[in-house]
């Protein structure tokens, strides 16, 4: 075999199960064709894969499941265009092609032994879930765990049953919010996700904050965190960029001197605060 493989060529996998999430969002469980586990894939929480359907293109998609659960690789996909739209037409047993894992994920080793504040907005929960489940699976290696998750309305809560299951646990504190609740069915906080900060008891000195959501959420959450006294080096965030190759060659994902696909998608705030266009 060529010791330098073709970095653009994906390998085949199949869909073991599809689980509808909310409207236009679906969870796909992927399995390797030889029946093995994903352990040898060597992925870390926060990394992504490139998903291909020939003729429909390729798209970067976050890995939603943690390496502690290697039987399947889970991706949560929003129907956005050609590739993602075609995925929705595939069912159990269908073949697709992937390559990866790519990018620098969450700094798990640095987070160990720390208190964690995870803040997700919308589909940002998809990548953050890989870290969330990782921490829950290795709970003793981390200290307090606080989750804040905001969506625009009660119909758009991803991973609803998983989030509900936390009601039974006492090793995670969670806060859920919706921007609007027209039907008046939401029992928790109504308002933007930053409003949750007033409810939580945070200790900014020894907590690491990990953010994942749309750009507008970052601006407000960062302002809040800094005001509360979080040190910049204790804030991590996953950035989204238009990506084509995923391997640092096509140039699409460049942010200043960084390449989001190689140096990110997870960045420490101190690495990007000086780059005007980063957030």
């Amino acid at each position: 075999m060529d010791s330098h493989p073709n970095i653009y060529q994906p390998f085949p996998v199949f869909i073991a199960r599809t689980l509808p999430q909310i409207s236009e969002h679906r969870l796909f469980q992927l399995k390797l064709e030889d029946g093995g586990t994903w352990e040898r894939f060597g992925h870390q929480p926060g990394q992504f894969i490139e998903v291909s359907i020939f003729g429909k293109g390729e798209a970067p998609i976050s890995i939603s499941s943690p390496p502690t659960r290697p039987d399947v690789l889970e991706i949560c996909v929003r129907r956005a265009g050609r590739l993602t739209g075609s995925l929705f037409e595939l069912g159990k047993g269908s073949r697709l092609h992937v390559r990866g894992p790519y990018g620098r994920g969450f700094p798990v080793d640095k987070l160990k032994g720390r208190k964690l504040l995870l803040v997700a907005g919308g589909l940002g929960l998809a990548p953050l879930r890989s870290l969330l489940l990782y921490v829950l699976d290795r709970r003793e290696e981390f200290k307090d765990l606080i989750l804040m998750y905001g969506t625009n309305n009660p119909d758009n809560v991803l991973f609803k049953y998983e989030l509900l299951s936390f009601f039974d646990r006492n090793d995670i504190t969670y806060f859920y919010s919706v921007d609007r609740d027209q039907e008046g069915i939401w029992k928790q906080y109504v308002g933007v996700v930053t409003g949750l900060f007033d409810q939580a008891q945070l200790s900014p000195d020894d907590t690491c904050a990990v953010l994942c959501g749309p750009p507008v959420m970052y601006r407000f959450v960062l302002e809040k965190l800094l005001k509360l006294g979080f040190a910049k080096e204790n804030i991590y965030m996953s950035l989204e960029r238009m990506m084509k190759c995923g391997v640092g060659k096509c140039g699409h994902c460049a942010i200043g001197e960084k390449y989001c696909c190689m140096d990110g998608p997870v960045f420490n705030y101190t690495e990007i605060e000086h780059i005007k266009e980063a957030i």
Partner: protein
Amino acid sequence: MKRIHKESLKEALKAWEEKYRVIAPRLTERDERIFDTFDEAWFTLDYAKPSLPLKHALFPQSEAVFQVDQGIYRSIIREEPALLFGIRSCDLKGMLQSLSFMSKDFDDRFYTLRAKNTAAIVMACPGQQSPTCFCTTTRSGPWADGGFDLQLYENGDSFLVEIGSSRGEDLASSELFEDASDPAAREKVTSFRRRAAQSIPLVPEIEQAMEKLRTTGAPDELWERFGMKCITCGGCSFVCPTCTCFNVSDRVLTEGSGERMRSWDACLYAGFTKEASGHNPRHSQALRIKRRHEHKLLYHGDRDTHGGLCTCVGCGRCSDYCPVHIGALEVARDMSAKIF
């Protein structure tokens, strides 16, 4: 050092053709000077600055990165020895910089194998080839200081030949090449270089612009002005020896079969950074112009520059071709006019 008579050059090219696909300067019926497959009848040495760098020899405008045949994916990495005759040192520097980029972290085998299989014969420039040349500023010319197989210095009715690699040794091993290791030949090369370098004026505004970007950055107003002018043709990127951004698309031949293509792209296009959500971090032409020029003058590590000043190699083609005068020279001059 060796020497070859000008009238023997075609013989040498013909001999190289047996082993390599030879690309050399030629005239066209319309009296243009282009680089193409060697053709004895149309071959010319009178070509000044070639209108395009030969970046497409290593990085074709569009190429397949794998084939799909009835759902089966297959790599197609072909190896074909090629020889580029008469390229300029600025363009060679561009290739060396691109090779560093394409081989770091993940190895782009399409680029790196082609680079490995391609011999480079540089024609040292005797002087400025056009008023937009500024290779003495970017440390990429007028002769190459490494990375070539052979380098030719014009010397009356012959060329002095500098050997830069073992492949170059091999290329210059036939009896067409005479030994020229005498001190007089060395002296000729030294004075050739001195005369050439002196004829190409330094452009201090390039380093001033770099310094400005490193410290305060250029004012938004400057980028906005250039952004208003840019007609988004992408030409500056396509003629640039160091621009290697690409897009990826599928060429479907029949249902379930075809090729995945990668094709040149340009950061000047609005869609280049537009995400599926509609959010676009570089949402104005001003930001896109800023990106292009900052990438050349500010954002590069030592490894990327390959001994050059920055990732602009001073060929001047963006200044030659931009229909609205937004080349590296114009941008740098504008930027430094504001500090002094």
